[in-house]
């Protein structure tokens, strides 16, 4: 029975259910009593129809939050968080809410397409048999090592399938990449954890249990690692239910949404994060007494104060705050790590935690638990690994490139040369749901279902104390003529024969999934258990996945975290120019939200700008340069230039400018196209020791253009900034 419960059956069942509810509510006896209501009542007093709720996983980012989707008569109406899922406990972010605008986006890829020439808009609709034959031929007619898979960051079932395929056939192992990972500097985080704790894993910061949180650039309330989970942690930090209201200090050169919530916001000079962390460590150690740990020995707080632009008193005050608390926690992240010395920053900040001795304790640092069916931490590719891959493409070593769930032409900095290198790849096949830039440069687009139309699972990389495997199931039948990429690959592999066929001996996606999940049946302490696979899978889908009931966070072994030398060098900055350049991920759009109209219309949390890109500039600096709000300026870096309107941002260093990442699409549908700019165009090829892009390590020039482009803001410039109200009062 279990093997036969395919998607088709499922949809049939769903259809019967919908028809039944339609009969019961809509076209049935009730409709005989239709009466004309006068305009006395609000229509909201009357609701109709029965809703059906399905648990699935949010695919908007790689965090893997559980969703419950409300559907009515086969239409998805509303996404809510899955209260059972330990990662998000019933909550969602704005992107999770807007996922329906992806599902019902007017600019989806509706059919398999063959492009007449790369980059052109003219395509030819194919049928799926022909499409699968194209994939099969690509697999069969090329050497396995000439075939590569580029995928999104999510460690999901497709990744497992392609990994299996690759290991069985000698294909290149799939590369997972995403701009979010790049801007989070995930590789640096796990490298620092490896250096300090001997284990390459994603650290888990228990913000909720802490008393004092020092965040060095980590934008954990926005897009960082697992924003919903960290926001819950932040609420725990602040809520004075069982403890004192926790304090939060943010170190960054440009106030992020996260920094906006800080009790103290410390605008340090970019590049001095490691220095500042070590100086605070030194001062805090002095307060705590005892021997000075080796890590802090070489730092001079006075010198640090002058280099970082933070007053010595402030450093001492902060050190006192950190040392004086029993629950102090230091978090490295974001732009602080995306610099030439990013690894040192991460190590220095992680080492700070040793002072409060919080490793593996509530309110401290853990290592994220591995997901239930995971044996080791699977890090997404760093930018340097991507660069190596691009080099391979350019060298002609890749003949066939499959792209799924990622849009490298947009997400990778132009300087890495993916666009140029792709010309040396003879066949590019995209599985994109939306007509993004990479799909436009692909020879074929074989659209995958939207996440809400798909089966699957996704491992939760971090954010939950319990290991979580979040399950996905279709909540609606596919709206367009799309097909699950897993199904396409399984069929194509069988057509290709040989090792391909034997690597994927499945009937369809569901069978593959069942096989993967069935291993969990025997585990103890799971959220669900069942005697047979069919029941287990039904529970798995019903509850939105499988998780352990116990806290399996790992306490890091931090024996000598402080007993090693940590480099206190300042970061090096590339390029000429008077401004430090901080690109940051738009908290509402992130890397792939630009095609969802309601995400576009969400005001940016810090600037309230909608539908566009802006550059943040300190008002004092702008005044000196004769620049005003909405003036379009040209930003020139060593790698490129772009023109963008100015937002006079009161909370940014005068020597720094910042641009959000998320807009600047040249494809990707009507809501995203030709809107704003992509700050990744300014980034050069500079990496830190962990291989992450030194995206915050650029210096840029600002030139006036004399053009004005009014930004759409929700806020009132008059009311918030007092501009245009008349002279001072």
């Amino acid at each position, binding site marked *: 029975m279990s093997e036969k419960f395919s998607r088709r059956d499922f949809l049939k069942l769903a259809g019967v259910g919908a028809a039944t509810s339609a009969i019961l509510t809509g076209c049935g006896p009730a409709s005989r009593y239709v009466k004309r209501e006068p305009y006395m009542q609000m229509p*909201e007093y009357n609701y109709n129809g029965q809703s059906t709720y399905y648990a699935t996983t949010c695919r908007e980012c790689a965090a893997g939050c559980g969703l419950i989707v409300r559907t009515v008569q086969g239409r998805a109406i509303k996404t809510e968080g899955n209260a059972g899922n330990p990662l998000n406990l019933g*909550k969602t*972010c704005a992107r999770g809410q807007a996922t329906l605008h992806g599902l*019902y986006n007017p600019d989806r890829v509706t059919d398999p397409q063959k492009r007449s020439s790369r980059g052109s808009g003219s395509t030819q609709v194919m049928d799926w048999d022909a499409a699968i034959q194209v994939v099969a031929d690509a697999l069969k007619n090329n050497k396995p090592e000439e075939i590569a898979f580029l995928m999104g960051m999510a460690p999901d079932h497709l990744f497992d399938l392609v990994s299996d395929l690759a290991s069985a056939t000698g294909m290149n192992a799939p590369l997972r990449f995403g701009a979010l990972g790049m801007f989070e500097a995930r590789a640096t985080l796990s490298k620092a954890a490896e250096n300090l704790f001997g284990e390459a894993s994603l650290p888990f910061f228990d913000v909720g249990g802490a008393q004092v949180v020092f965040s060095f650039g980590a934008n954990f309330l926005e897009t960082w690692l697992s924003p919903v989970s960290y926001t819950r942690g932040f609420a725990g930090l602040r809520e004075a239910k069982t403890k004192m209201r926790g304090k939060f200090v943010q170190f960054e050169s440009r106030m992020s949404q996260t920094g906006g919530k800080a009790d103290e916001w410390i605008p340090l000079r970019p590049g001095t994060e490691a220095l500042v962390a070590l100086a605070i460590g030194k001062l805090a150690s002095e307060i705590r007494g005892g021997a000075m740990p080796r890590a802090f020995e070489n730092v001079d707080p006075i010198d640090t104060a002058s280099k970082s632009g933070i007053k010595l008193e402030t450093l001492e005050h902060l050190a006192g705050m950190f040392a004086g608390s029993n629950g102090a926690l230091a978090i490295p992240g974001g732009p602080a790590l995306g610099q030439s010395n990013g690894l040192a920053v991460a190590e220095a900040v992680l080492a700070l935690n040793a002072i409060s001795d919080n490793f593996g304790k509530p309110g401290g640092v853990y290592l994220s638990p591995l997901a239930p069916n995971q044996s080791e931490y699977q890090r997404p590719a760093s930018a340097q690994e991507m660069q190596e891959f691009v080099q391979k493409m350019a060298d002609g070593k890749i003949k066939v490139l499959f792209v799924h769930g990622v849009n490298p032409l947009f997400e990778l900095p132009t300087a890495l040369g993916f666009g140029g290198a792709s010309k040396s790849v003879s066949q590019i096949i995209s599985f994109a749901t939306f007509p993004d830039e990479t799909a436009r440069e692909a020879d074929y687009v074989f659209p995958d279902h939207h996440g809400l139309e798909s089966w699957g699972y996704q491992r939760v990389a971090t954010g939950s104390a319990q290991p979580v495997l979040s399950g996905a199931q279709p909540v609606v039948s596919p709206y367009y003529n799309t097909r699950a990429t897993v199904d396409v690959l399984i069929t194509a592999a069988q057509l290709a024969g040989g090792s391909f066929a034997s690597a994927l001996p499945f009937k369809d996606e569901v069978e593959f999934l069942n096989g993967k999940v069935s291993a969990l049946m025997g585990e103890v302490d799971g959220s669900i258990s069942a005697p047979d696979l069919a029941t287990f899978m039904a529970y798995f889908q019903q509850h939105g996945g499988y998780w352990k009931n116990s806290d399996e966070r790992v306490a890091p072994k931090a024996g000598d975290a402080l007993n090693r030398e940590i480099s206190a060098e300042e970061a090096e900055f590339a390029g000429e120019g008077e401004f430090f350049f901080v690109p940051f991920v738009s908290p509402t759009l992130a890397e792939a939200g630009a095609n969802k109209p*309601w995400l576009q219309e969400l005001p940016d949390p810090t600037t309230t700008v909608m539908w566009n890109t802006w550059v943040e500039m300190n008002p004092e600096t702008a005044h000196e340069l004769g620049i005003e709000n909405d003036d379009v300026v040209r930003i020139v870096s060593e790698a490129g230039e772009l023109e963008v309107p100015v937002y006079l941002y009161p909370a940014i260093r005068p020597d720094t400018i910042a641009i959000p990442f998320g807009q600047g699409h040249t494809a990707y549908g009507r809501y995203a196209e030709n809107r704003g700019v992509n700050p990744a165009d300014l980034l050069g090829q500079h990496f830190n020791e962990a291989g992450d892009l030194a995206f915050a390590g650029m210096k840029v020039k600002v030139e006036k253009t004399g053009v004005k482009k009014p930004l759409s803001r929700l*806020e009132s410039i008059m009311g918030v900034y007092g501009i245009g109200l008349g002279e001072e009062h």
Partner: protein
Amino acid sequence: MVTLSDLKISEVKLGEEQTGKWGMVIDQDICTGCQACVAACAMENNITFVGEEDSGYGRSMHWIRIERFWEGEYPEVKMTANQPMLCQQCGHATCEPVCPAFATVHSQAEQLNLQVYNRCVGTRYCANNCPYQVRSFNWRDYQRPEPLPNQFNPDVTVRRMGVMEKCTFCIQRIHKAQDKAKSEGREVADGEFTTACAQACPANAITFGRVDDPESMVSQLAKRSHGVKHLEELGTLPNVTYFKGG
């Protein structure tokens, strides 16, 4: 026909005695300004998006917006606590009496400030008279291209051009919960359902419930000393309590 006895029952207590029924508590200290509530509200209530030009000209349709201001000058600059602003469902609502068409009235059952779209003729007096400026007007016939309308919530009217709208405290959810409870012969339990914004909020900064029930979570929270109601001095008797800081 209304009989006199009906009226006696519905006689609304004046001034301070007036109590709401449904209310909300918003903790600004933990609100991160992430806009999840805004998106959730838009998705639940079929709110239209208006595009770059109109949204930049004060015509966005958000039923809830997150306000933030700045304090101090760089480097001592601070972002003030995010302030989600939505219809306060005033007990003494200034918007209600001024509508010539009875399009915005006080519901007796829910003690909410209703907006009856099909009665609205678009004088926009209510919005003008709202001290909180939380009403949105359908300035144009904003089109949502196919297949976006598939996502429409069938429980919520899709508003067309020329009609005022505003936060309803997700009245469709209130009714659904009440009907469910009624069919099961019980009262609606506290926390059994909540509004779209409160449900989405990752920080749990929004709590919704019965303010006339002293045992409910929202009543318990509202008793905390640092709760404030916005523009209370106008005598609007708002039903949303804010916690400003820690």
